[in-house]
């Protein structure tokens, strides 16, 4: 950023920081929620609870980062939750068949990418609506998971396979540094590589990106494949966390991921948003869920509170934006 903004007419100067403003707002909410829950239950700040909190949102972190890429292209991926179950099933079956954890990992990630590739080809190459296509694969992947598992869970005892999702160093689950690594890698991909620019370009105006020779149709395919790969990684973590493959894993996770991405300020119409916002969105979401459990809040109210926070953040943001725009 340059300092030129200070001397320009007020309108553009304010607009420039609309995302930054959202992030500050989210950080504020996170602090308020943390302090509030901390007062209500001293256990909230215990290292054990922080470990639990982070571990519980590790999978959501991964899926939401994939969802951020997709929503930056103006798309949506409803299939990620089902894909966690499907790719987990493929991974567990591969593990039991071969006895090799690396083969199991590879199979899970490859299966996730396969669902992503189906989404990507239909959406990017054949130009079908993302909502439609992923709604179909949402059902399809869940169905295949049920078939693979025969609707029952499969126990996993291979220590190597369970390591990522199951092991903690003290209170620090190993999955947390792993998620941080993925975040760094995806940030480099999104902000540092030509692929990342193409993601923004495809979401800003796909026609322009096309005419400029950026091959947005190819970008879309890869974005969905990326989301599928992250679903595969999430599946490995989920299996590790529960020492078994579960046909109903990942149920409704797509909605949590979409919620977190929207909280994080990424536009539903593509082209605007950053990974940092999504991270903050997931964190806020996780803290609220954790805190509501810790404070013994009536479960009837929990959904209500989540809905109100989402609506409140979006509403406030829009109001502030309108005020500065006028």
């Amino acid at each position: 950023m340059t300092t030129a903004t200070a001397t320009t007419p007020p309108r553009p100067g304010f607009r420039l920081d609309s995302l930054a403003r959202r992030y500050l707002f989210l950080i504020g909410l996170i602090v308020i929620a943390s302090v509030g829950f901390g007062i209500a239950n001293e256990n909230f700040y215990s290292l054990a609870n922080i470990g639990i909190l982070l571990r519980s949102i590790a999978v959501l972190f991964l899926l939401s980062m994939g969802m951020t890429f997709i929503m930056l292209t103006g798309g949506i991926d409803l299939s990620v939750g089902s894909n966690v179950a499907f790719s987990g099933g493929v991974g567990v079956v591969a593990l039991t068949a071969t006895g090799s954890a690396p083969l199991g990992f590879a199979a899970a990630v490859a299966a996730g990418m396969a669902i992503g590739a189906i989404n990507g080809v239909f959406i990017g190459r054949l130009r079908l609506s993302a909502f439609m296509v992923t709604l179909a694969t949402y059902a399809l992947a869940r169905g295949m998971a049920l078939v693979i598992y025969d609707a029952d869970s499969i126990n996993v005892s291979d220590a190597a396979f369970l390591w990522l999702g199951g092991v903690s160093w003290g209170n620090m689950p190993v999955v947390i540094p792993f998620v941080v690594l993925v975040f760094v890698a995806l940030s480099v991909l999104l902000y540092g590589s030509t692929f990342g620019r193409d993601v923004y370009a495809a979401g800003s105006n796909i026609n322009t990106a096309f005419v400029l020779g950026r091959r947005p149709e190819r970008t879309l395919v890869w974005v969905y494949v990326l989301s599928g790969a992250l679903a595969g990684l999430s599946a490995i973590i989920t299996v590790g966390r529960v020492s078994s493959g579960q046909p109903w894993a990942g149920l409704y996770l797509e909605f949590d991921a979409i919620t977190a991405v929207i909280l994080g300020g990424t536009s539903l119409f593509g082209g605007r948003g950053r990974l940092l916002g999504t991270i903050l969105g997931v964190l806020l979401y996780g803290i609220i869920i954790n805190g509501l459990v810790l404070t013994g809040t009536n479960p009837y109210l929990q959904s209500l509170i989540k809905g109100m926070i989402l609506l409140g953040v979006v509403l406030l943001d829009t109001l502030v934006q309108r005020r500065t725009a006028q």
Partner: protein
Amino acid sequence: MTFKRTLASTLALATGFAGTAMAAEDTLDIVFINDGHVAPYHVAWLSGFEDAIEAYDAAFEDVKITGRWLSAEGSLEKMIQQTEVTINEKPDVMFVNAINVDAFEPLVAKAQEAGITWIAVHSPMESADYSFTLGDVENGTNQGRAMCALSGGEAYKVAVMLGQAGNPSGEARREGIMKGIASCDNVEVVAEQPADWDTVKAQSIAENWLTQYPDLDAISGVTDAYMYPSIAIATNSGKDLEFFGYDGDIPILQQMQDGPVKADILLSGTREGWNFVQMAYRLHKGETPEKVYDFFTPLVMSEENHKLALANGFPEDVEVYYVDQALDVAAKGFLEFGPDSVK
């Protein structure tokens, strides 16, 4: 980050002091983590649980009894998270109605390490301290047998609405119902379909069945949640169907005296909620119940139907409550499981 760390350690210290200070008083903290919260059964269950906590806390002055319940809304991930957070809170007893028992094995070990008594709800777990089970196969068999005994000996077509694929409780109930039906030749199962414990899905399935099988005689379900839409649809389309329920929901029991519901299994959410608290209290007092504790679940029929059934060869040793009695204990959980039952 440093701020948080300081705060965390300060609070940890505070907790330590508070912990020793509180240990003087005898406390019993019970947490119930349920898989979902959609059916009337759940509502009755959880409110029975809450009422029982209050009643026990008031009845026994020497113990401070507290409790709360959580609902995972059908999501495995959410349930695991809730369980982890709860373990970290160290309650005395946890009732966990696991969406899938395999997924909870690591957490059972963790809870026991923390000194928590883990009671697996409905689906028994080898590793759990206790399992609270419903005798689903036996109950289902009773429902199937009742169907046989009340079908009148002629060809009788029934459609069975199942639970969610892979859910052990639903599978056990199905197994029992089929076993009971197999005890006679005239009852034919024309359709079986899972409705995922979902009332809305049950509605469309019932609609389809009524169109597809115009000569259907009865609908059987593994939960009373399916009965509400099924009865409504049959009534609206003027069909004279009979229903065989499972759960003992009060509104369904009310449909039994001269109504279309012929038999039901008296689980009753309210009763179960009360039974949880009674069990936790007994454990706290040092009693050791069976490792696999079977919830007492009589079959419900009208007196008239019971007689008819007995005449048709229904086994006499099956415990049957008549409708009035069933309604009474279903509404007032304390009759069977209240503080008086353990005083």
